[in-house]
């Protein structure tokens, strides 16, 4: 899931300031789960900027062009009338809504990371979509994401009692966790395997896929 948080209110107010008529679009997927862009938050946003808001709509997944077409069909006229569309989803949703509506799109949220939901409102970053997954070798713990240096051959000298020097020793050292998992699984030979440098050109050149 893409984890989001609401933008700072002052920043949002400044962003909306030049526009008189705003249409709000919420996300029925990740931002609903994050409680940042679901129906309730869309209603709250409408109330907060009631002088400007001329309409609202929910799109099941604003990052899907087909669902924009389906869910925004009945709002076409109102959206056309708006000066800008405020999208309460991740950056991917904002851009897709822009592609569909051809309007000025404004992000209401900050996209934080791809993450795991521990419980309501508690999320942890788990994946950076690096395009070269090594989870089979690292006991299901991602070093690219969870090691603050993204090391493929850790740990570094910055771990103390299994905690990372980044974040004042509150976060786990990913490589100590990888070592623990592989040890439990009796697969420590994978820990000592040297992982060669990543080929970043693969990621750079992969901006579009067609299956």
């Amino acid at each position, binding site marked *: 899931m893409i984890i989001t948080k609401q933008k700072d209110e002052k920043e949002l107010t400044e962003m909306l300031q030049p526009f008189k008529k705003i249409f709000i679009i919420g996300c029925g997927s990740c931002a609903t789960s994050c409680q940042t862009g679901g129906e309730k938050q869309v209603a709250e946003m409408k109330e907060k900027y009631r002088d400007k808001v001329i309409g609202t709509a929910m799109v099941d997944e604003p990052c899907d062009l087909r669902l924009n077409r389906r869910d925004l069909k009945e709002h076409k006229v109102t959206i056309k009338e708006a000066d800008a569309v405020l999208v309460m989803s991740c950056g991917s949703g904002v851009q897709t809504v822009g592609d569909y509506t051809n309007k000025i799109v404004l992000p209401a949220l900050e996209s934080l990371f791809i993450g795991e939901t521990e419980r309501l409102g508690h999320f942890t970053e788990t994946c950076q979509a690096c395009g070269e997954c090594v989870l089979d070798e690292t006991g299901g713990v991602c070093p690219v994401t969870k090691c*603050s*240096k*993204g*090391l*493929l*051959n*850790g*740990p*570094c*000298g*910055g*771990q*103390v*009692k*299994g905690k990372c*020097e*980044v*974040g004042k020793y509150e976060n786990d050292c990913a*490589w*100590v966790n990888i*070592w623990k998992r592989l040890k439990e699984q009796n697969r*420590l030979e994978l*820990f*000592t*395997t*040297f*992982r*060669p*440098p990543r080929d*970043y050109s693969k990621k750079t050149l992969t901006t579009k896929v067609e299956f």
Partner: protein
Amino acid sequence: MNIQRPAYSKLVKELRSGKFVLTGELEPEKVTGLEEIMTSARAMKPYVIAANVTDNPLAFAYMNSLVPSYLVEKEVGLETVYQMTIRDRNRLALVSDVLAASHLGIKNVLAISGDHTVLGDNKGAKSVYDLDSAQFVYLLHKMIDEGVDLAGNEIHGKVGLNVGIAANPNADPLEPEILKIGRKTKLGADFIQTQTVFDIDTTKAFLKEVEKFNCPVLVGIFPLKSYGIADFFDKNIPGVHVPPELLEKMKKAKDETNKEKKYRLYDDVNIEFFAPFIKEIRKTTKASGIHVMAVLYERILEPLLKEMN
């Protein structure tokens, strides 16, 4: 060690000859002049076989380490260990700097990760970490032993360097650290240099564990120039704590009002702690020497060496 390369540097020649050696440390700071570094280098030259030149330690943006490494060798005649972090350079910049170091006659590189930028004095900086330190050792192996870069592009001319890696005997848990060192020595490390240690039992246990890698180890110590430095070190260096009794003795010395007397007291406290420490390492372990991180505290080297012998 699986890759046996020639001893290009004096340091590695000495390490391989079985001598117990001392190395020192120089720290270029946020300066445009090198007078202080040169003075320190001259002061430590009679006592050390080589000096590390640090590379933006604790992620503070300082003068680069290559220029002082070169100038210390040229003007003082003291061999240097050019520290290179992968925090600030991608693989292109690493290759560039290694080629430049080769041209300048540098013979030792210490390949390290470097403290994260969020610990430094420009916290908003983007860390690079294109490679990790093991992959950097692999890159150095490619450049030195095969004459190519990571992509296999040929290097015109010889890269004649020896490679050091860092290790942390204080790591807790220690096992992943030991496994990591094993992984790195296989890739072509000529020596291991440890993080600062104060605890003799921790150090001995670590040295025992790394014996199997058959790679010379320099044990890092940090003589404490003043109480202020001791206190900063205790609070800010990951995983390293100054023993409370040593910190207490430094604190007592700090209260001496006569400057000369105070310095002597500081020296006495250090010698009383480190001389038996070094003797014990030398007598009971297979360590190849001591890396003395006495930055701007070179006057401790002579009495320490005297006591040590």
